[in-house]
C-alpha cells in the first residue's frame, strides 16, 4: 500500500511542480515587462515546453555530443572527435549495406505509399451506399500494432502455406524464400509497406479531396474535360500541398523502418535498416557513441532528402493563396 501511495504522491507532484514552474515563468516574464497576455500564454504552454526541453531537445543535443565520444552507457565517456564518423564511413562493414537497404526501401515505398493511398482515397471518396463502413474498415489497419502486422505478414510470406507464394504458384513461380534469400528481402518489405497506404495517409487525402471545390469540376465538365483530365488538371494541383506533406512524412517514415524488420528478422546478408543498426550498436554492443553517430547520419540523410523535396516543390505544388502570372513566376497574395 505504501508503494502505491508513494507513486500516487509522485503522480500528484508532477502537475503541482509544473504549475509552480508555469507560475514562476509568468511572474518572471512580467518582471521582464512582457505583456500580461503574452506572459499568460507562455505560462500556459510551459508544461509542454518543459517536457519538450527535458525529453526531446536536451536528448537530441546530448546524442550529438555522444556521437563524438566512445560512450558505452556505463562509466565516463571519452572524446573521440570524428572517430565514430570516420569509422562508419571507412571501416564499418555493416554501415553501407544498411544505408543501401534503407534508401532503397524509401525509394520503392515512397511512390507506393503516396500514390497508393491517393488511389484508395479516390475510391472511398465516392458517395455510394455503405461507404462509411468501407472507410472504417480501411482505417482499422492503422490501429493495429506493428508487431501484429508483422505476424500477419509472416504468415502471408510463409514459403509453404503462405498466400503470396500460393498466388505466385498460380503463375508458375517457384516457392520463394522471402526472408532467407537476400535478393527477396527488400521486395518483401516493399510489399509489406502496401499495408501503410490504408489508414492515416488515406484519411488525409480523403479530407483534401473533399476540400476541392465542386465548381472547378463542373466548369471543366462544361468545357468537355474527361475524368482523367479533371484528375490531372484539377484534383492533383488542388491537393498538391497535401501531396507534399505526404511525400515528406512518408519519406521520414520509410527511412525510420524498425519494428517490422526487427520482428521478422530476415537474413542479415540483406543488411540491417539504419534504425536497427542504431539499436544493435547501442543496446546489444553497448557502443552508444557509434549508435548516436549512425542516428545523426540518418538524420542528415533525411534532412537532405526532405530539403530536396522542398526545393522541387515550387514546380509542382500549388497553394490556394498563390497565383501564377503568365511568365510562371509565383506571387503570393
Amino acid at each position: 500500500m505504501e508503494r502505491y501511495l508513494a507513486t500516487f504522491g509522485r503522480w500528484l507532484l508532477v502537475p503541482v511542480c509544473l504549475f509552480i514552474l508555469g507560475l514562476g515563468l509568468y511572474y518572471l516574464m512580467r518582471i521582464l515587462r512582457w505583456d500580461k497576455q503574452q506572459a499568460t500564454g507562455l505560462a500556459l504552454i510551459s508544461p509542454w515546453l518543459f517536457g519538450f526541453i527535458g525529453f526531446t531537445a536536451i536528448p537530441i543535443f546530448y546524442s550529438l555530443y555522444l556521437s563524438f565520444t566512445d560512450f558505452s552507457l556505463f562509466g565516463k565517456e571519452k572524446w573521440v572527435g570524428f572517430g565514430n564518423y570516420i569509422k562508419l564511413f571507412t571501416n564499418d562493414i555493416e554501415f553501407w549495406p544498411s544505408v543501401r537497404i534503407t534508401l532503397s526501401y524509401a525509394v520503392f515505398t515512397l511512390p507506393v505509399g503516396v500514390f497508393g493511398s491517393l488511389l484508395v482515397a479516390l475510391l472511398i471518396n465516392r458517395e455510394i451506399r455503405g461507404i462509411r463502413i468501407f472507410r472504417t474498415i480501411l482505417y482499422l489497419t492503422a490501429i493495429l500494432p506493428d508487431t501484429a502486422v508483422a505476424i500477419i505478414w509472416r504468415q502471408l510470406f510463409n514459403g509453404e502455406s503462405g498466400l503470396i507464394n500460393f498466388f505466385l504458384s498460380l503463375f508458375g513461380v517457384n516457392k520463394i524464400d522471402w526472408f532467407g534469400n537476400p535478393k527477396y528481402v527488400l521486395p518483401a518489405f516493399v510489399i509489406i509497406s502496401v499495408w501503410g497506404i490504408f489508414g492515416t495517409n488515406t484519411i488525409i487525402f480523403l479530407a483534401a479531396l473533399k476540400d476541392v471545390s465542386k465548381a472547378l469540376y463542373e466548369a471543366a465538365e462544361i468545357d468537355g474535360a474527361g475524368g482523367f483530365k479533371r484528375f490531372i488538371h484539377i484534383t492533383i494541383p488542388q491537393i498538391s500541398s497535401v501531396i507534399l506533406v505526404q511525400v515528406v512524412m512518408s519519406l521520414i517514415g520509410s527511412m525510420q523502418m524498425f519494428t517490422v524488420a526487427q520482428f521478422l528478422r530476415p537474413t542479415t546478408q540483406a543488411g540491417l535498416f539504419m534504425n536497427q543498426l542504431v539499436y544493435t550498436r547501442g543496446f546489444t554492443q553497448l557502443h552508444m557513441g557509434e549508435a548516436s553517430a549512425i542516428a545523426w547520419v540518418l538524420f542528415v540523410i533525411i534532412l537532405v532528402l526532405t530539403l530536396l523535396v522542398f526545393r522541387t516543390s515550387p514546380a509542382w505544388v500549388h497553394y490556394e493563396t498563390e497565383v501564377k502570372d503568365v511568365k510562371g513566376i509565383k506571387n503570393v497574395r
Partner: protein
Amino acid sequence: MKRLCFLCTMLLVVAILFTACGTTGTTGTKGISDTPGTAAPDGKSAAQGKPSEKVEVKLSTWAGSEEAAELQEIIDRLNKSSDTYIITQDSNPADYETRLTTQLSGNAGPDLFWVSASRGAQFAARGVMLDITDRLSKSGKPAANLDDYYDSAFGPFKVNGKIYALPWIMQPVVLYVNQDALDKAGVVIDENWNWDRFMEAAKKLTMDKNGKSLGESGFDKNNIVQWGFTLNGWPPVQMFIWQAGGEVIAEDFSSSPIDTPEALMGFNFYRELLDSGVVPSQQTIRDRGFDQMFRDGQVAMFMGGAADSLDTKVENFKCVVREVPAGPTGIKATFVDLLGMGINSKTKYPDVAFEALVDLAEEIHKWKVMPPRKSIGSAENMQSLHPERKDAFPAIVNSLEYSRPYRFYQDYPDWDTVFWNQLMDPIVNNNGKPEELVPKVKPLLDEALK
C-alpha cells in the same frame, strides 16, 4: 488566482505527504533506520551494509508468468526465513536486457538481476556488477563454495580473476532423439557415437513417403516426411569445431584461429550436414518451426539445451536424451549456455544483497536443470529432485563434464556480430562455402578482438 495557488499548495502538501509515507513504511522494507552500506569489496563492513531491519532487495528477471510463479514460491520461503532481507521480484521477459541496461545506466537498476552470459561479460568488465570475490571466499554458505562449481561455470562472469556473478544454470547442448524412429531404422547410439556414425544415422532416419531412406535406390527427395537432423545456425558451429580440436577465439583473445585445419573440419562438417539432404531446407525450417518439426515427428534428432526438456514435453513418440556425437578423433565437446545472477554495483546494501544472492542461488540450483554445482548436479541427486527426467540425467551430467561456453569478453557481441553476419549466415542461408568465406572473414574477426 489566490484560490488556485491555495489549491496547488494543498496538492503539494498532500503529494509530499504521500511520498513520504511510501518511503517510510511501517514494515521497514526500505530500512527506515538503516545506514546505507558502502560497497566495500573486502566485505569487512558487514555492519555498514546490514541495516537493523529487513531491507527490500529488488530482483529483476526475465521469467515468464509460469516461471515467475515458481520463483515467487522460492522467494516467499526465503523471505520468511531471512531476518535481513525481503526480496521483491520484478519479472518482465519483454525486452528484458534493454530495459535492465537502461535502468542500470540511469542509476535506477534493481539490486539483484538475472543476466545472460554475453551481457554478464559486458557488465562485469564495465563495473556494472559488484565484485563478489572476497565476499564469496568469506561466506560459509554452500552456494559460495567455488570448488563445488564446474570449471566452466564462471567463464563469462570472471574478469581478471575477479568474480562478478553467480551462475544459476548450465544448459549443455544434448541430443534429443525420437527413439521410435531410431528403433524402426535400426539405429543404435552407443559409446562409439561420433560424426561418421551420426551422419550415417541421420541418413537412415531421413525417409520419404514410401518409407525409403536417403541413399536407398528410389528415394524420393521431393517427398521427404522425416529428416534425420536439423540445424539453422543452431546448434552453434563452435561445438563442431571444438569436437574437431579447433577454436574460434584463441585462449589469449589475440586472434580467431578459424582457418586452422581443425576449425575448417568443423565448418565443413556443418556444411556437409546442410548439403547431404539429412537437414530440411532453411525455408522449410522457417515455415514449419525449428523445434516444432522435431515435436511433430518430422525430424528424428534435435540438438537442444538440457533445460528444453523435450523428453517430457513430446507426446507423440518416445523422446530420449543422448550425448552429442564426438569428433572424428574422439574429442567430446558440447556448448553450454550459462545464466547468472549479479548484484548492482550501486546497490545501497551490498552485504544484504550478497546474502540474498547466495541464498537465492542455492535454491535456484535445486530448482533448475542443470545446476552449475557438482554436489547438486550428480545424476543420482538430479534424479531424486526431478524424477520425471530420470532417464535423461546420465547423458546431461556426462555432457556437463566436457561442455564449454563461448569465450566471452567485454566486447564479445562485436565479434559475434561479424561471426554470424559475415560467416555463418552466408553458410546457413546462402550456400556459402567455408573455404571461400573463412579467409575473408578471419581478418575481420581478428580486428574485432583488438
